[in-house]
């Protein structure tokens, strides 16, 4: 079985033309509908390096889903070109192209008349894999998404919870090890707690499979959490800004982006890093505050906890419960200032926030 793990690009197997991950490039992409004055997508150019997650975000009517559906030719291009691994999407037939692109949609679209196993086997079957190879791949994917193959394999989608269905949808999209995955608001219809868990799972999964992913959402927080890069679209499919999450939060290109990312963008930046990413002041003695903060807490959560404690410093503990430092208002307040002072020197010394910097 050929799978990629931890950044090791693997090949899909014989007969495949693309590696297991490939860069994506949108070049001056245009979409116009006949009879409509305004273009749905206007000269959109985006480059996504192989193995990165690009989030398309924007208000409704900004064309983010349209832009995504142009990539797998669910909607035909009006102008420009899209390249996957340097190869134009127009070079192969739509069905051939789509079999090499994972596709996950909000309503999942699992086939209700097929078992979980059969659902996941869809694209391998279309590609004519032999049965034993398909069965092994299906088992592997179910394990990858944290479901027990013996327990859920023979179930029908209606017998799964919403979160499980969405996971199976992701497994189905990954089945033939496509270099590129398209995910259209995959967690949009799921309750906030499950959604947050699925986001974490996707990030964990992505560390393993290293796919190039285009992810559509209207939720800026989800975009910041999931994306390596975020493309903010405005009405007419115009690209307002294309940047990494810290850069987007720190330097919004214009008033539209600033408004879209929200007035609390400084706080959102604090959500990008954890206490483990900063140099903490030494604890004063072994006395523990109650409750202590784990090192894995985001700085935003730490700030919230310190504020809730009336501004008194809270001790920070590592995974073994050992006190490793203090979270204080001064520390958090100083993060941006220090970063400002350190900017230009390329220094990543005490207190600097690599993850918060653009």
């Amino acid at each position, binding site marked *: 079985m050929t799978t990629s793990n931890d950044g090791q690009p693997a090949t899909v197997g014989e007969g495949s033309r693309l590696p297991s991950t490939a860069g994506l490039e949108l070049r001056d992409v245009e979409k116009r509908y006949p009879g409509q004055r305004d273009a749905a997508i206007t000269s959109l150019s985006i480059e996504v390096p192989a193995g990165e997650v690009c989030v398309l975000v924007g208000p409704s009517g900004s064309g983010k889903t349209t832009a995504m559906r142009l990539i797998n030719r669910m909607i035909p291009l009006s102008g420009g070109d899209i390249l996957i691994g340097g190869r134009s999407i127009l070079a192969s037939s739509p069905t051939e192209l789509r079999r090499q692109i994972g596709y996950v949609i*909000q309503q999942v*679209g699992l086939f209700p008349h097929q078992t979980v196993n059969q659902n996941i086997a869809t694209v391998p079957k279309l590609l004519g894999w032999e049965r034993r190879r398909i069965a092994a791949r299906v088992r592997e994917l179910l394990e990858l998404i944290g479901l027990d193959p013996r327990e859920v394999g023979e179930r029908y989608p209606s017998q799964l919870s919403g979160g499980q269905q969405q996971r199976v949808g992701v497994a189905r999209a990954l089945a033939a090890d496509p270099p590129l995955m398209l995910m259209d608001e995959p967690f949009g219809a799921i309750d906030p707690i499950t959604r947050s868990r699925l986001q974490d799972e996707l990030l964990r999964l992505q560390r393993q499979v290293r796919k190039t992913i285009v992810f559509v959402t209207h939720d800026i927080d989800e975009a910041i959490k999931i994306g390596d890069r975020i493309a903010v679209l405005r009405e007419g499919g115009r690209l307002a800004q294309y940047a990494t999450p810290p850069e987007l939060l720190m330097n919004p290109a214009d008033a539209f982006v600033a408004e879209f990312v929200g007035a609390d963008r400084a706080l959102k930046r604090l959500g990008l890093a954890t206490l483990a990413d900063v140099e903490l002041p030494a604890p004063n003695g072994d006395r523990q505050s109650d409750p202590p903060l784990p090192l894995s807490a985001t700085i935003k959560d730490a700030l919230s906890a310190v504020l809730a404690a009336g501004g008194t410093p809270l001790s920070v503990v590592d995974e073994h419960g050992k006190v490793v430092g203090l979270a204080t208002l001064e520390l958090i307040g100083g993060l941006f200032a220090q970063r400002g002072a350190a900017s230009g020197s390329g220094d990543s010394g005490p207190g600097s926030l690599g993850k918060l910097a653009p």
Partner: protein
Amino acid sequence: MSPIPLAAAGPVIPSFGNPNAYACERANRLFCWGWVSKNWSTVLWPALRQHVALTVIAVGVGFAIATTLALLAYRYRRVEQPVIVVTTIFYTIPSLALFELLVGVPGLGLSRTTAEVALVSYTLLIIFRNTLTGFRDVPAEVREAASGMGMTARQVLLRVELPMALPAIIAGLRIATVSTIALATIAALICDQGLGVPILSAISDSVFKTELIAAGGMAVALAIAADGLLVGVQRLLTPWARRHAR
């Protein structure tokens, strides 16, 4: 005294006065098992087999025509309205009138073909409507996922839309089959076939009711059996439709 006798010439009860007749026959009881067993192999069993043939042919041909039309209407929306209009007209023509009208059509006459044409025309509306609804009820996101994963239009139809439409299609077949079994008794008017033959003969020349009750009962039993068979087929073909969400 009237010159013409009021009573018909022949025996009113088939075996009236026949020393070999069963007691229940001679007494003209409502139902006579003896008569049934005596006439099973010569009257009732052949009639049942003919009835099954009439029904299977009518539903089979009707299914082929209506499903083709439904697929056309699914692809090309404008096909739907004309088909609905025409099949509804067929469906609403009183069956007796339709049988008699068709007898007048050159080339048809008093034949089994004429009976089948009429029976087929009654199945079209039901099968067409159910099949079309079955296809249209396939959720858009399922279709989207199917073609988004690289299925051709044909693969989407055969692997996704058709299996998902099966419960509705079979529901249509069940109604069509049961109503055809009932309707096919009237076919005896124009061709000498099916359970309608003993029923008609009982109506026309007898006050002896066993023949009528036996043949009518067999038609009902046949309808129930055919319906049960189709339910079984559906269970077999659509195991997923039975399982419910947790």
